[in-house]
């Protein structure tokens, strides 16, 4: 019997979860949800530097050259991007921020990465991450990936 095609949210293996966590959203039938696929295709050294950017955010640091939100645009209040540059082109992983632990950890932030884009070029994925943030099935999977703390 084939696996049911549904949303899945998987925290990245090999990354810590502090008051922040990073995960990929996937769904077999959705080619536009391609953040994980594009990340997996990166060459090892570049992939490590993207992981370094995830770590830098997880540790609570700030650097707009590596990641940022769009606080001045109410349409993208929860949008978050990680970015890097190679040969003059800027690449981005788009995702959204969400707290799946409102009871046990009010300040927790999960960054769920949804799609890949590049600038200049294809920025049209912006609305996708926001629309999926509001999808109840996605929310359920994020809560499953980062359950409330026990005890």
């Amino acid at each position, binding site marked *: 019997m084939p696996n049911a095609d549904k949303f899945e949210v998987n925290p990245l*293996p*090999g*990354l*810590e979860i502090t008051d922040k966590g990073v995960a990929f959203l996937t769904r077999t039938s959705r080619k536009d949800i391609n953040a994980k696929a594009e990340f997996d295709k990166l060459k090892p*050294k570049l992939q*490590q*530097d993207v*992981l*370094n950017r995830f*770590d*830098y955010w997880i*540790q609570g*640091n700030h*650097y707009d*050259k*590596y990641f940022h939100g769009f606080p001045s645009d109410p349409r993208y209040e929860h949008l978050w991007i990680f970015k*890097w*540059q*190679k040969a003059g082109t800027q690449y981005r992983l788009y995702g959204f921020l969400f707290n799946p632990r409102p009871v046990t950890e009010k300040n927790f932030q999960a960054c769920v990465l949804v799609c890949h884009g590049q600038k200049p070029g294809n920025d049209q994925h912006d609305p996708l991450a926001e629309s999926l943030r509001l999808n109840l099935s996605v929310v359920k999977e994020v809560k499953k990936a980062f359950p409330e703390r026990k005890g």
Partner: protein
Amino acid sequence: MSHWTTENSESFIRRVTFDYWTQLQKRFDSMPVTQLELAKIFGVSESAISQTLNNSKNPTLKTLFNYAQVAKLKFAIVPYEDSDPERSPINSEIFTLCWEKAGRPRTFGQARALPNVAATAFTGESLIVPADRAYYKPRRHGRQSPKRGEPFSKRSFIRQKNNAYTNWQCVLRGLWWKEIFGWDKN
């Protein structure tokens, strides 16, 4: 699960150099120095500078030194014991931050004279603050120090520069530490 940097030496080194170049980039941003200017200083192409700052190559110590010089910085190589070796390495900026918050000790004597912050801050022991640090003694009208959670205005603070003193009551409450060091108990 182990952190990805524990996989092999290349991963760990890549992380350490990433932290270094991040600090340098932030420094260059603040000076400011552009990649074009760096290219002129080092006599290389701008793309070579970009590759270096973006951690594309394994730098030599001489390269780290040369870039630090331009940034008017020094650097140290700091081995440390991690109680949980499966976790990620400590970001080098944290060491810098701690050194700065400790008043930038330059000798072993100065460093050894520093209070053990973690042990004293929340145990109620007396704490001597070095006299060369500016600090604030929380004071409210008619009361020595506010209760935990009470809001207080900075205008009611008394700033004392010249005399070291102890204030264990505020240390107990954790408020003083937050005000001076920006540390939260959690």
